């Protein structure tokens, strides 16, 4: 990391100001304002089709808002090019990756690619990869094909990739779909430990119980932002019922 990190360090990781986005004439994110401070573990909850994934894509600059502005580490998100600071595990990423002949080590090494797109890896690159593998407990499995691992192990490969990148922001979209309960608990403990070391985490999760236990902040959206605050307050308010409405969301979600 360079001097630039020091300069931008006090800034919020993500700031969204009055952000709206629509697919054609169907609004998906409506006037959302949200700030994520460094070191936050934000759980993003909401019904299916509520715009959680789209909001995250807006935050990462993968989509441009129709109106409003998103800043990522102080830069307009779509112009942000310091890719090594951000790691994203998209929904179903691990399922798709299962078909390719790629070893655990190869996949984790990809975390270093933004640092070194060409040329030999330095000792510090290799060290970052080894440490990441060790951190998630995959040292024994480095030469396995990712597709031959269990769901939980595969998930840890993707986390290790983010760790190898030494990213400051880790964004996960429903990472534990298809993972057994035991591995899932271990996985969330791992996330909490990582967060304790200072990594900012944004987690989209359908299991509200899990989110309220592990996250330091909750944002509840259904197109609009219904709640943003700490988990205790979230449990007391009826933001959840507001956001989920009368079951309409389930009917609407049919993509």
């Amino acid at each position, binding site marked *: 990391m360079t001097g630039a990190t020091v300069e931008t360090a006090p800034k919020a990781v993500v700031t969204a100001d009055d952000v709206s986005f629509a697919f054609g004439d169907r609004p998906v994110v409506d006037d959302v304002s949200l700030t994520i401070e460094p070191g936050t573990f934000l759980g993003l909850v909401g019904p299916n089709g509520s715009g959680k994934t789209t909001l995250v894509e807006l935050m990462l600059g993968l989509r441009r808002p129709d109106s409003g502005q998103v800043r990522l580490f102080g830069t307009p998100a779509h112009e942000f090019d310091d890719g*090594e600071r951000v790691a994203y595990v998209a929904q179903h990423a691990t399922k798709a990756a299962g078909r390719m002949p*790629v070893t655990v080590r190869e996949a984790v090494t990809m975390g270093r690619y933004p640092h070194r797109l060409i040329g030999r890896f330095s000792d510090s690159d290799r060290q970052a990869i080894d440490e990441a593998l060790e951190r998630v407990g995959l040292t024994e499995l480095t030469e*396995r094909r990712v597709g031959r691992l269990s769901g939980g192990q595969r998930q840890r490969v993707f986390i290790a*990739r983010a760790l190898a990148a030494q990213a400051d922001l880790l*964004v996960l979209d429903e990472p534990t779909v298809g993972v057994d309960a035991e591995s899932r608990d271990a996985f969330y403990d791992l996330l909490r430990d990582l967060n304790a070391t200072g990594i900012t985490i944004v987690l989209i999760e359908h299991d509200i119980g899990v989110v309220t236990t592990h996250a330091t902040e909750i944002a509840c959206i259904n197109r609009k932002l219904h709640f943003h605050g700490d988990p205790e307050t979230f449990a007391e308010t009826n933001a959840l019922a507001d956001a989920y409405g009368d079951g309409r969301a389930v009917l609407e979600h049919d993509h």
Partner: protein
Amino acid sequence: MFEMTSLLTVKLFAFAPFNWFLEDAYGAFMEALAKALGLPVLEYAFMQRAYLAAICIGVIGPLVGTFLVHREMSMIADTLAHTAFAGVAVGLFVNNALSLSLSPIHSALVVAIGTALLVELLVQYGDVTTDTSLAMILTGGFALGSVLITATDGGIAVGIDAYLFGSLTTVSRASVGLLVLMTGLVSVAVVITYRPLLYVTFDATAARAAGISVVWYNRLMVVLTALVVVSAMQVMGVILVAAMLVIPVATADSARSFKRSILAGILVAEVTVITGVTLSYQYGIAAGGTIVLTGIGLYVLSLGGRRLGLRTRAWRRIGRPGERVFTRIIDNTASEPKADGGTEDEER
């Protein structure tokens, strides 16, 4: 166009050394090999060229094809090959109309690269119609080619079979030269861009979030595909050329790592082309077709081998229960109803 002119300059520049290579280095080596193995076929200059061409195709086919197959874009190779045929026809047509003597391979290169970029746009902005668009471009290109060829009077239809089905005897010095040059160019390009290409293939969204320009690497990939397809089509024929980007890759799919799968793909492709060219010469049958059938034969063998391998592994696992530590069974909690009542994972 700039790319083309610089390409031609490079080619002219490399011509004298290439002749030296073809005759004094490679040719001498093949003659020695012919004597050592007692195979006079290796002494004929046209067969030497055919083997050299085949070896080059065996390298660049899987080198580009591995990325293409794992992005599930193999159809693009076939599309580009068929539009390259239109490129050949355009070249012949223009030559005939304006009494020029352009190489139809060069016009094929231009048309294929142009189509490659167009196809990439379609894939980028495409939705469900991408498949349909590709099919339309594929047949459209081929249709244009056939129309142009019949619209031109004179004997241009004569050499067309060679482009359609491929041929060993028509592999000229210039086309081997082009193939060697392309092999160098494509190999260097893949080696330089290996990391971003792999990242984009493995997890395009994460690659984008990590600041890698997925669009540009996709463009690079389709242009490389166009180069491979056009340079290989004289041996393989436009109808069959895409096979060399796909079949060896599928055969090598059980490799553990991505790097190994590329190397294994190249190895399989080399066995395929060398066997295919030899059989084709021996029995006087079409080169492209023989190569493709050999490739499919190897694929079927590898399937059989893989099944056998799995069975032995299963036996071994029963013998050594310690192995089971790694095979954790996914329990059924994953299919419990979610808090929001959603069914996201069943939908896909």
